[in-house]
């Protein structure tokens, strides 16, 4: 427990429990399987009414926005609870792009003007946003050059290039773009309907999380923050994003575990519930073990990112959680299909939606090869 946290106190379990119950009830009403399938088949990929209700009824978009910009100023420990529930319900939503990627980037940039322009609207649920890091490898490695370039001065830059895969890129009201400029890579913001911006929705492995290609042809952009601090900003965004994703992954894994345990208890084969067979029973126990370890990793990362006393270094805990939770969710989602047998690989059964989410989440920030090396870099090996 001799960590490096700076001494923030942890929120109480009671408060977290209340938050969880509120989100869970909301999602049970708004994001059951039918709603998920409807949203994933819709043009925009999510239900905009639910997005507004999330803001109006629960204020979820405001949770981690700093108080001075219209939010509650809470941390990843609280946000983790929300994302865990969203992951469990497979909610299709621009939450990860808007609240996690974009808002964190704006806050981390220290750009007060951008924060004042964007954060209150994000907190109010009236603005969706995303972040594009159009590097060549898809692993946020901005040092090796970017596929979007910025010309012009520090105000009123012009962006050209391609961002090949951008989370919620087709629907976001504004897009933060990292582009190579005269002072090196720098953060910019463009409007989603800016002239010169073509947005092409892409087929996705995970139909509950949309991606788009952005083609930028002389798009007007506002610089955000100081290019000198961009690496630090992106490191922070990556720590926050992978920690948030880890919580979502734990939620998804938990849903798979619950489905398997339920099916193993109810499904009869050879005159017995299949859960009485050790092969199935131990599969469920293995899934449980993975979920518990992933859960601990996700929570520790949230505490670390929030700087809670006694927590380990944020960069390390976030990298550990990203690795452990990515693999746990993938393994548990795959095993869930096996426990279900034939019915588990039909289109009608939700098992494959979790499998798709698990694989897409694992690869979202580069995938195993990238996150393992990132972890070693964070621990200095």
């Amino acid at each position, binding site marked *: 427990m001799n960590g490096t946290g700076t001494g923030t106190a942890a929120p109480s379990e009671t408060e977290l429990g209340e938050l969880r119950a509120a989100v869970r009830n909301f999602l049970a009403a708004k994001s059951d399987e039918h709603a998920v399938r409807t949203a994933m088949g819709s043009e925009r990929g999510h239900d905009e009414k639910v997005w507004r209700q999330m803001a109006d009824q629960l204020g979820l978009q405001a949770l981690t926005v700093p108080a001075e910009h219209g939010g509650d100023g809470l941390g990843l420990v609280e946000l983790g609870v929300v994302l865990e529930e969203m992951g469990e319900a497979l909610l299709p939503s621009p939450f990860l792009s808007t609240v996690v990627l974009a808002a964190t980037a704006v806050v981390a940039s220290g750009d007060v003007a951008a924060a004042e322009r964007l954060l209150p609207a994000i907190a109010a649920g009236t603005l969706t946003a995303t972040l594009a890091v159009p590097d060549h490898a898809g692993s946020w490695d901005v040092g090796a050059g970017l596929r979007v370039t910025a010309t012009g001065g520090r105000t009123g830059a012009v962006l050209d290039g391609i961002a090949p895969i951008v989370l919620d890129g087709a629907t976001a009201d504004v897009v933060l773009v990292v582009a190579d400029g005269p002072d090196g890579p720098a953060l910019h913001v463009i409007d989603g309907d800016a002239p010169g911006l073509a947005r092409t929705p892409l087929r996705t492995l995970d139909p509950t999380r949309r991606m788009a290609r952005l083609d930028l042809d002389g798009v007007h952009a506002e610089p955000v923050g100081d290019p000198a601090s961009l690496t630090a900003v992106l490191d922070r965004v990556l720590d926050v994003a992978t920690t948030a994703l880890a919580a979502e992954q734990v939620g998804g894994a938990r849903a798979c575990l619950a489905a398997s345990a339920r099916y193993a208890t*109810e499904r009869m084969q050879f005159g017995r519930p299949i859960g009485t067979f050790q*092969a199935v029973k131990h599969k469920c126990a293995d899934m449980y073990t993975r979920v518990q370890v992933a859960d601990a990793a996700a929570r520790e990362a949230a505490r670390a990112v929030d700087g809670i006393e006694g927590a380990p270094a944020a960069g390390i805990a976030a990298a550990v959680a990203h690795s452990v939770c990515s693999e746990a969710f993938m393994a548990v989602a795959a095993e869930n*299909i096996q426990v279900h047998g034939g019915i588990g690989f039909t289109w009608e059964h939700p098992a494959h939606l979790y499998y798709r989410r698990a694989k897409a989440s694992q690869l979202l920030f580069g995938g195993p*090869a990238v996150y393992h090396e990132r972890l070693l870099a964070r621990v200095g090996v």
Partner: protein
Amino acid sequence: MPSEMDEFVATAREFLDANATRRSGSADLPEWGVGEDRITYFSTDPPEVDAAKVAESRAWQRTRYENGFGWVTGPRAYGGRELSTLHDLVYDGLEAEYDVPDTGVLSLIGLGMIGPTILAHARDHIKDRYLPAMYRGDAIACQLFSEPSAGSDLASVETRAVRDGDDWVVDGQKVWTSVAQHAQIGLCLCRTNPDLPKHKGITALLVDMSAPGVEVRPLRQMSGGADFNEVFLTGVRVPDDHRLGEVDGGWRVALTTLMNERATVGGEGAGPAARALSLPFLTELLRANGRLDDGATRRRLAELYADQAATEYLNHQAIRKLRAGTQPGPEASVSKLMYARNLTRGAHFAAEVVGPRLIADTGEWGTYSWTELLLSTPALRILGGTEEIMKNILAERVLGLPKEPSIDSRSPFRELRRSGTAGS
């Protein structure tokens, strides 16, 4: 002096040269960046393409049949040649050198499994009527065994058949029925006496798939295609002479079918998925993604290749044993387990190499196309017997480990259903 086998090879070669085009070199290995960008285990096509392919299959099977290669191991009375399984394999090996239609729609279930079952258990006039039609490519047969509530416990079929005069009246639902949408006949396991233990009250009937009351609905699998069907049977009349084996003796009939299923397993090393996971193709995948010099990737490639090669060697060994006159036994399940494992690992390996370009289709060749394989591999560990069932077979039938204490093999089926419902 040429041996009998040499002569067989010569005749087969002559037939193939006359009726098909020989491939050039390793034409069955996909080339990186060339051709259709699709990596799949299942073969789902749009309906019109599917129908055309079935027609081609039927035509090629008729050509084979008319030239004496439609049923190499079958009795002469039904158009066969009464040669050994080895001759069959040798012919397959030769044919693989030619560019001919894939006849899987006919052979995997119908000719490979249902044909031998009809031969072993049907009355003579039924054999006369269906066997030549099947091996000539006219009749496609499907296997109406699996049911939603039975799952791995195949002997728990609930589809009922009730005697009515000279007919049986069949009601129930089957599932995971491949080729049912194309089939003319289906071999259907039915519960005929629920007062007997579950293995004892089953009767096997040959159902005319065009009979009133048979409805085939496609079943969409998680990878998007519909390679299987649900088959609903509502008051379907089946004449008693279409029964295979004894009344209530259908489990023995089913075992004949299942044994023939295991025997066909060795050949699974082929197929577009296995070819995509071949070393040359994966090497190009690594090269295209700049990972050919990455130690971690190389290590995983070596592990994958070693297991693939060893599985291939295992199949070579099975063929050598066959040549030596040993029939394959339950140990053939090893090949299926390894095949599923290698394909699963291979798909995840490729996914890791491709990285984020797997999650959205950027149009780049050889990236998003891996998703279909990734979404197909879970089925490999379930279809044709789950891993758990395979392992039970290996442990009990090969290693001789004792069976789990079971109550449900002796109790009347009717009571099992009751206690089953109560227990869930």
